[in-house]
């Protein structure tokens, strides 16, 4: 009983937050609504006896990813997004509705045929959730684990390279002309001093982001 009520609350909040995040014209409001969503997802995890995951969720999603988003948003300081009638709007809504309908249909049709595993709720509670995950993670899933760390390393490199200072990817004057049809006036010839200024500020921000990430893990 309690579980169901809790679930309903969490679900409502999740969905509500998600809808606001998707539908809100203001970008900051969307990000904050997303925060709400993330926290309540953590709540769902707790209901499902996955405390460790819940904690990780809060830390990473709400703590790192969302903050990153907020940083970037504040960096760009965009105007309010205006919902104008673009080509994909009706199509998108239509597809969403279709999927929703499908969902309802599917919900009452499917059967689950799978083997139940060995990790009962009680055994997990007894061992402590963290330990349970750790055991499996470092034995059966050691290889993906290492790969995951490698991926994080690459992400770090990528972030630095992509968002790093201007001088890093050297742009030659001819390349700018041949890249594209000349329709987009994409390369503005800035003086080297200006670029260096921009580079400096951005580089600092990027480093900060990377540090935050490392800390989170």
């Amino acid at each position, binding site marked *: 009983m309690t579980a169901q009520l809790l*679930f309903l609350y969490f679900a409502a909040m*999740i*969905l509500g937050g*998600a*809808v606001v*995040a*998707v539908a809100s014209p203001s*970008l900051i409001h*969307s990000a904050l609504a*997303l925060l709400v*969503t*993330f926290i309540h*997802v953590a709540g*769902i*995890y707790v*209901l499902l*006896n*996955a405390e460790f*995951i819940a904690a*990780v969720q809060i830390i*990473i*999603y709400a703590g*790192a*990813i969302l903050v990153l988003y907020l940083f*970037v948003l504040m960096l*760009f300081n*965009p105007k309010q*997004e205006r*919902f104008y009638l*673009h080509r*994909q*709007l009706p199509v*998108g809504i239509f*597809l969403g509705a279709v*999927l*929703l309908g499908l*969902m309802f249909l*599917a*919900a*009452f049709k499917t059967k689950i045929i799978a*083997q*139940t*595993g060995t*990790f009962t*709720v009680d055994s997990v509670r007894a061992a402590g959730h963290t330990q349970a995950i750790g*055991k*499996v993670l470092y034995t*059966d899933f050691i290889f*993906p684990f290492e790969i*995951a760390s490698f*991926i994080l390393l690459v*992400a770090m490199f*990528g*972030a630095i390279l*992509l*968002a790093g200072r201007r001088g890093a990817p050297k742009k030659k004057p001819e390349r700018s002309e041949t890249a*594209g*049809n000349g329709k*987009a006036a994409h390369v503005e010839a800035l003086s080297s001093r200006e670029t260096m200024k921009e580079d400096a500020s951005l580089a600092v921000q990027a480093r900060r982001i*990377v540090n935050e990430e490392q800390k989170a893990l």
Partner: protein
Amino acid sequence: MVPLEWYLLLAFALFVIGVTGVLIRRNIIMVLLSIELILNSANITFVAYSYYLQSIRGQVVVFFVLTMAAAEVALGLALVIALYRVRAVLNVDEMNLMRW
């Protein structure tokens, strides 16, 4: 007891909202935001199944998904920044460098 179907429905609804957001939103950052919703829905599904199938593997997968999400966000936003440098736009409709 909360039936499994409820969790699944929740996850699926979240998924739909996320997809809708990807399709509708014009600001690239918001698009990336909607992608997070989708990932979350996948996570919920995995955890739900892990609980009901009494297997810990679902949660291990969630672990990795989370990792991926983080990496993806970092890189994605870095890309946005790089793109903003070239053209000062955040509107996906105006990002038409690949257009013929």
